[in-house]
């Protein structure tokens, strides 16, 4: 059929860029560079930050201990939330600000079930796994509520989830019958601390497991393609046989599941819950993680690994600041400064300007010679 004969190759200039330039343009460059900078800072300021020692915990288990282990351990909840948040952001172009509140609900459900409705219990009244599954189910139901508002009533995500943000901890109070339950059995704390005989904190394993699950989901299903397509152009997705509403709903439910697992880790750390305080402001950190990972908060294309690295950057920063005894209340101020620097550096406008400057600088050098 060719009426028009010409080589399409000729007019398309394949960009020949240096390795360095391609690398700096990569989405993961900024979060990785931030992580590297934090590592470098600690190496110079006090290399003992990276010291890892093996100790015996109170149950007689050998356990690894050290700042770096704490970072990996404490980031777990945030990583899980960041993963879910990335999907929600991609599909709906907005964020779920109710994850902290939903964590309170999921944690309450799990703990309350395990405690059998008592304020304090010495042994689980129900298989822990079953309680976790129920927690996941409940949390997914709340996710579905958020998702339905977003998908079917077309309410902006932040506003839609403002509802659960406001009501979530109150619902948790209701679930707990206004009590603060405590689970004393050690086996309940395995997930938040250590499994007997294994020196690595269990949350790290859970995180790795969840990351693998999502890696597989993205690799072996079309979750990634569908959420991106829906997030970029819902109309067009609809005409290509997708059900945009369902997919949005699905991402909110997936986030719900992530939230429940995070909630489980959190309650399992101490065997107790204070639902008005648990995971306070974590939604903000989760959203930050997504943004630090180089993902657009207005949806569409995403890179889940960016968000994961973003989460570790945030926790690394927090742990570093704690080490230098920055007052915990002043922490946000430092965090804000670092965040702003990172997002400014990764802003497309700034990057363009910088590369432009480099180009003109290169030119003047050439002219000079």
């Amino acid at each position, binding site marked *: 059929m060719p009426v028009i004969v010409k080589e399409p190759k000729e007019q398309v200039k*394949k960009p020949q860029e240096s390795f360095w330039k391609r690398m700096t343009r990569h989405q993961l460059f900024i979060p990785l560079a931030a992580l590297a900078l934090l590592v470098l800072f600690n190496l110079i300021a006090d290399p003992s930050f990276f010291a890892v020692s093996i100790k015996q915990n109170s149950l007689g288990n050998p356990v690894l201990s050290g700042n770096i282990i704490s970072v990996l351990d404490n980031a777990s909840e945030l990583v899980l939330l960041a993963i879910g948040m990335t999907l929600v952001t991609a599909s709906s172009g907005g964020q779920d600000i109710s994850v902290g509140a939903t964590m309170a609900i999921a944690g309450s459900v799990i703990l309350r079930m395990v405690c059998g409705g008592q304020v304090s219990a010495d042994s689980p009244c129900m298989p822990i796994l079953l309680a976790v599954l129920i927690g996941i189910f409940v949390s997914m139901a709340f996710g579905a509520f958020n998702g339905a508002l977003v998908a079917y009533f077309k309410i902006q995500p932040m506003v839609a989830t403002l509802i659960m943000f406001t009501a979530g901890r109150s619902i948790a109070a209701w679930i707990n019958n206004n009590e603060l339950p405590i689970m004393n059995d050690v086996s309940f704390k395995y997930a938040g601390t250590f499994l007997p005989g294994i020196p690595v904190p269990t949350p790290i394993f859970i995180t790795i497991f969840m990351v693998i699950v999502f890696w597989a989901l993205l690799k072996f299903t079309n979750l990634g393609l569908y959420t991106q397509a829906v997030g970029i152009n819902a109309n067009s997705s609809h005409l290509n046989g997708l059900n945009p509403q369902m997919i949005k709903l699905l991402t909110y439910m997936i986030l719900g599941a992530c939230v429940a697992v995070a909630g489980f880790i959190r309650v399992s750390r101490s065997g107790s819950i204070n639902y008005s305080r648990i995971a306070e402001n974590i939604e903000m950190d989760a959203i930050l993680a997504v943004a630090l990972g180089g993902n657009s908060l207005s949806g569409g294309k995403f890179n889940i690994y960016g968000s994961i690295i973003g989460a570790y950057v945030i926790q690394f920063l927090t742990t570093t600041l704690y080490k230098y005894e920055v007052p915990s209340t002043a922490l946000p101020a430092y965090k804000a400064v670092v965040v702003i620097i990172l997002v400014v550096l990764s802003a497309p406008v700034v990057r363009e300007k910088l590369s432009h400057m480099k180009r003109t600088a290169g030119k003047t050098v050439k002219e000079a010679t």
Partner: protein
Amino acid sequence: MQEGAVLEMRGICKYFPGVRALQDVDFTLREGEIHALMGENGAGKSTLIKVLTGVYPKDGGEIRIKGVDGAVSIHSPQDAQNAGISTVYQEITLCPNLTVAENMYIGRTKGNLTNWKEINKGAAKILETLGIPASPRQQLGACSIAVQQMVAIARAVDMDCKVLILDEPTSSLDEQEVEKLFGLMRDLKAKGVGIIFVTHFLDQVYEVCDRITVLRDGGLVGEYVIEDLPRVRLVSKMLGKELDDMADIKKDVCTAEVSVDGVPVLEAEGLSSSAGIKPFDFSIRKGEVNGLTGLLGSGRSECVRAIFGADHVTAGTVKMNGKPVKISKPLDAMKHGIGYLPEDRKGDGIVGDLSVRENIILALQVMKGFFRPFSRAQAEAFADEYIKLLEIKTASSDTPVKSLSGGNQQKVILARWLLTNPQYLILDEPTRGIDIGTKVEIQKLVLKLASEGKSVTFISSEIDEMLRTCSRLVVMRDRKAVGELSGENLTQSQIMATIAGGDESCQ
């Protein structure tokens, strides 16, 4: 500056990542002329206009404007307005949440306060003179696309400008509206305004323009006085290939014989949808190309959307290959081998930020299922095949589809549906905003598909295009099928007569 020129661009360059959109382009616009800017899809017409009006910063070259010494620097559309350039961009660029009147005046009034009475009065006057059926106080988003387009034009022509730019303003206007626009353009021309006019309709070019500048692949081909450049030469300039004769293409196209004796692939009875289409019957045979024609807004799109299940179907039955089927959502239709290329490319077609590759495989992937993604290699093979087949101009299959020019985006969507190998393909305005070379390509493709035993429904605003491809035409008026033409009835005048509907009372 040249004698009599109002606008001069010299050596304009513009690069996008991996794309040379404009390279050393010169352009001169004289006082009181209508100057057509022609070129294939992706030739760089819109980019040139956006560079001129400060939407994009230019990477090289200079712009001069009459009355200003030296090169002017235009960094924003506002600068352009101040310099006396008023523009209607290719995509409608108004604010849907503001009123019609405000859309006409915002960003160009002097003073810091809005005098609502005055702008409503002013707008009402312009709307009336141009015969635009809208109220000044109406929210623009509530108007039809055509009205919005007219409002954009009204805004531009109302400005006291030296240069008026119209980038494909006629793509969603009907004939009368186009005529009205041309009248306006001639008036302005008489007043000494220079007009840049971009269109893919050759007839329109020869109807109103004085000069033509042709772009190809971001480079300047040349500037011609209209009399010196007959159609065939214009087309060959645009394509970059000397054509022996345009008639060849036509002949080529017409030789494809259409079989009309196959079994009905699809039969719809009493179909109606929530979009407001009245119950209609529709059928198409194997290997047939039929078309839907009618005036703008006559309901052609709604009709095919109902068949595809894109709108909520409220009544009717559908049979495919003689068996009743239920199509309530696009996926059902796709599973039954129906493909649908929507008319609103940007809104309904492309998935902008996804790559060309992902856009091409999207529909097939959805049909294949959630749990069975194509491997990367497979997807790349598909994409490369169709990029080559349809000659899609793209830096690579990884390029985001939104950075392709309009026509190439259309090809990507076409590729998407061809890849699903449908037995019945619905094309709603597949040639809108597409250059003539590609248009012919698409028409040929349609006929080729038909010859392979596929059925195609073709919708186009250009009647001769329909005549060339379709063996049967359904004429629609006021959201109703009012006639059907085939065989020797299939002539321009017959169609016009049916559309006009002499036998029925006025709408």
